[in-house]
Every structure is written in C-alpha cells, then in structure tokens.
C-alpha cells in the first residue's frame, strides 16, 4: 500500500515536471529534432548529469536499486529505430503523451491510444520476435563499468561533469 502511494507521488512530480518544462510541446520536441531548439536536449543532459551522479553516489553506500536493461543488440537497435520514427511523427514519447492527454490535448490522447494498440501488436508479434531479435546477440545487463573496468562512481563523475558542462556552457539555446 505504501509502495503504491510512493509510486503515485513520484508519478505526480514526474508529470508536473514534464508539463512545466515544456516536454509536452510539439513545437519544442520538433524544434529539438530539427536541431534548432536546444532546451529539451539541455533538460535531458542536466537530468542525466544529476541522475547518474546521484545513482552512483547511492551505489557507493549500497543504496541504489538499479535496474539495468539487457543489451540484446538487434532488438535494441530495431526498437530504437521504430521508436524514433514514432517520436518524430507524433511529437510525443510514451511519458509525455500521458501528460499531454491529461492536459486535454487530443493529439496526445490519440498517441496514447496508438501506444496501447502498439503494445498489443508487439504482444502478438512477440513469439516470432523473441527468437529472432531478443535472443540473438544478447550481451546481458552490461554497463560502462564492466566494459571499461573502472569503478562506476569515477565514470559517473566524469560523465556527469561532461554533460552538465555541455548543457550549461557549450550548447546555445537556439541554432538557426
């Protein structure tokens, strides 16, 4: 019960941040993908910069409940490609279409309905895809830590500083 309440409250904060930060704006998302408006890129770089440092600091104390997704190469590449097409066409991602729909945006609601349908189509196709794309070239739940062989906190510090530097000092707000 407590867990459900925590989930609900974290979700509320997540939804509010996405709305307030302009992530549900078609103009902002397509501006990002056309490489003109950098604010959503900067938002993501900052979030990952803070998040990677936060998570690996927690990990130092053994307090991070990490969840690493497995690297089954072909499925991740094909899925990322299909996802990218959907993102550019709709202007939403799965999280922002939820928030956009709750704002009352009809296109976000249709993206949400399409997403429920897409998940269903995937479930139907799963038996075929499983053998073909998900089982092959599966390297398991690997992170940079294992690949490079340096402790995660050092990597996270360097990575975090790089991303925050890019967001705060390198990238302009707009490119024409």
């Amino acid at each position: 019960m407590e867990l459900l309440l925590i989930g609900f409250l974290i979700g509320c904060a997540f939804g509010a941040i996405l709305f307030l930060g302009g992530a549900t704006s078609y103009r902002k998302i397509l501006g990002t993908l056309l490489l003109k408006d950098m604010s959503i890129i900067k938002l993501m770089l900052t979030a990952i910069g803070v998040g990677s440092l936060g998570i690996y600091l927690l990990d130092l104390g053994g307090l991070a409940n990490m969840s690493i997704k497995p690297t089954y190469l072909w499925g991740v590449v094909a899925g990322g490609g299909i996802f990218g097409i959907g993102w550019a066409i709709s202007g939403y991602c799965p999280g922002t279409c939820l928030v956009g729909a709750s704002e009352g945006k009809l296109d976000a609601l249709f993206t949400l309905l399409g997403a429920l349908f897409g998940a269903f189509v995937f479930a139907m196709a799963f038996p075929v895809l499983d053998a073909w794309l998900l089982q092959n070239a599966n390297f398991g739940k690997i992170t940079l830590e294992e690949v490079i062989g340096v402790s995660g906190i050092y990597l996270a510090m360097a990575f975090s500083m790089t991303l925050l530097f890019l967001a705060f000092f390198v990238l302009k707000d707009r490119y024409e």
Partner: protein
Amino acid sequence: MNDEPIISWKVAGIALGLLLTLATFLVKPLGVSTQFVVTDAVVTHQVAPTFAENNTYLSRYGEPSEWTVGYGWMLILGMMVGGGITAALLRNKQPLQDQGFMPAMWVMRFGSSRIKRLAAAFTGGTLLLFGARLAGGCTSGHMISGISQLAISSFIFGLVTFAVAISVAKILYRKT
C-alpha cells in the same frame, strides 16, 4: 508574449535528476512503457482470459502478481494526475503556441486537417510502443534512467533513437 516553458530547462533538468535519484533510492529507476503492456494485459485478461494466457507475452503481465496494477502503474496514473492538475492550475502561464492539438508548425506544413494530425498521432503512438517494447524501454526507462545508470543498451537506444528521429523530422520538414 512569452513563448518559453513555465520553468527553465535548468530547473526541470535538476528536478528530474533528483527525482530519478529519489526513485532509485526508494524503489527503482523511472520507467513508463511497460505499463502500456500491463494495461493491455489487465484488459485482455478480463475480456478474453484464454487468449491472454495463450500469448507468451501478455500472460506474463496483468495477473495478480508483481506485474500488475502496482507501483509502476500507480506511477503513470500519478503522471496523469500530477500533470493534469498542474496544467489546470497554470494553464494561463503556458505559452499560447503549446496549447491545443493543432501546432502552428504542423498546420503550416501539413494543413489544418484535424483527421490528418490525429491519424499521425495514432500511428506515431503505435510505432512508439512497438519500438519501446522491442528495445525494452522508452525515453524515461532507457534514455533518462538507463543512461544515468551507464547501461550499454541504453546508450545504444539513445543514439539510434535520436539519429532516426532527427532524420525523420528533417524529411518531414524538408524545404520544398
């Protein structure tokens, strides 16, 4: 007239990074796209239980177990409630261009047909969730949470997704 989001990318990015850290400490990193399958599976288990049980993917979800209406599902419910309430309270602060479901840049390129916009949104949504389930996550689970944990699969997902989405956006909005 102000055309920037209500909070800056700095505030939104730092808040999202801290929220991700908090979620990883309390439960697990943020993720959205799995819950679309959970929703489908819960409905399918109600409407056509035999069909749901016979599908190797749907049968994993939606039954009274860890993969049902639980923490993750409450998170997306929270996103809609939190986003919806914030939007209702601060509607008049939201940039005018970001309201409604017919974005000005879409209308300039593709015309004012509502059906066209909603069809694109639905199709985009279908591709989003098919791709996300194939890759094992979406913008939140892979890009924000996954890259913050320095997961190799998430770096690959992020690169492929952005490369494809940028290409598709450039094609959609090519100068004719």
